[in-house]
């Protein structure tokens, strides 16, 4: 364990930030890029996870457990969100037989 701990001190926090922000941007890109609703949902999960990793990194560097606790709450919320989101998708699929978000343009104006 000591080995890992000393290794992590070699990695500057900036690198964690670059990694997480890259992942976050990939998620944002996916949300804008894709049309399949379920993939968009996954991209949002990716964004949430990059935030989680960033929180854990900050928490380690600040030596404050609060950040890690927040990660648990984000997981709670993500689980609840996915449950609701997927049931909305299932409902839509049943009525509409498609999860292509461009069908949503019916509501445009």
């Amino acid at each position: 364990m000591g080995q890992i701990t000393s290794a992590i001190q070699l990695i500057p926090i900036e690198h964690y930030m670059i990694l997480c922000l890259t992942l976050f941007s990939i998620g944002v890109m996916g949300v804008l890029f894709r049309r399949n609703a379920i993939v968009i949902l996954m991209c949002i999960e990716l964004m949430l996870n990059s935030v989680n990793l960033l929180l854990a990194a900050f928490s380690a560097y600040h030596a404050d457990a609060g950040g890690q606790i927040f990660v648990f709450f984000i997981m709670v919320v993500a689980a609840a969100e996915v449950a609701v989101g997927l049931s909305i998708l299932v409902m839509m699929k049943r009525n509409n037989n498609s999860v292509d978000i461009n069908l949503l343009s019916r509501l445009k104006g």
Partner: protein
Amino acid sequence: MAALISIAVFGIALLYIELTNSKKIQLPLAVVGLLVTLGLTVMQWNHPSSSFNNMAVTDNYSVAFNASILLSTMFVVLLSAYYYEDVKQHVAEIMALMLFTVFGAFLITSFSNMIMLFLGIETLSIPLYVLAGSKKFSLRSNEASFKYFLMGAFASAILLLGITLVYGASATFQLSAISDYVNNTKQLPGIFYMGIILILVGFSFKVAAAPFHFWTPDVYEGSPTLITAFMATVVKIAGFAAFYRLFSSAFSSIATFWEPLLWGMIILTLLISNFAALLQKGVKRLLAYSSISHAGFLLLGIIALNKLSAGGIFYYTLAYSLATIPAFGVLILVKNHRNSDDSIDAFNGLAKKNPLLAIVMSVALLSMAGIPITAGFFAKYYIFVAAIDSGYILLTIFAVLAAVLGVFYYFRLLNAMFLKEGEAEKIKIPVVFGISLLITTILTLAMGVFPDYIIKLL
């Protein structure tokens, strides 16, 4: 704390009542629950307290906003008796979800920690995603729900990144500690500023302010009308209460940084919403754009950031809710009568056969437009005074012009009701529905005549 527990307990009780499948109990139970909670909330007035390691603070600010959230919810629940008359299933669940939404709203009016802000916003939003889709066989409702969900989840992720970056700089989630950090640090790191921008973006998604308002018209139009009324009022009140609480406590010392951003957002919001509203044909979309423009006026109260702001925002949200609920209520009746036609033409000649509905609707519209002797006039007045007090004179002049522009589209609807000919016939007003409409109208007028009692509260 007692109010919070009571609303949760009544929500859970409603879920059990569903087993009896008797609507005779469901509605009264929801109303009793809201009344009990209202009583418990008001009892906390002038008894500020903080609980759970300073995670939640109860002060007059949160009590006032909570009371107005409860009041709005109560009127919406009263309207629901008629709205769900023919619906057999899930009515108790829908009401329980409304109460859970109120629970989430309570969390964010009284938060003092970023974790509570995030959890509260999610507890507020998740039941609403479901409520927006509660007309299960209507494709429009499905789509509104899905769109709301996607936008909401996306906005939450952005808000979260903002909170994380602020945490990365300040090493704390506690609002007071963040404020101390800002005051004690000479040069704040870039991530702190970025965090504030992202939090601002997340919030403007939630309260529907431009340039992140684009989901609002679609979601408001597609959702069941009653739920739209609920969304438009409760989310707005709670969202702005949290918005002001956060920016007036944690970030007040670096207002010079975020005020220009907010300035731009206000201008954009007022411009886009008012011009778009002029072009709308459907009343529901018109009300959606009007709700966006109200967000613009409310942001004016936040940018002012002085001792008049809190009172101004409180008065404005209350006046806005008391006008929005009857407007949507009348819309429900007219729409039902006209085979779900909600264009402005459906209101033609409403005043001839249904003078009561026309009067209720006109008071609501006049209040939204900000015409004197209705609450809306003083709402705008107090917000403008607060903004001028902080030196935002140009912005206030712009907002006044936007308000004048707003009068046009409200008068289009008034014109249709009173001057145009239409084949309107007598619409039967259900008793509970009528009472709810009348009380909100009377309250709107009362607030317009005696504004002092409300504004002096905060």
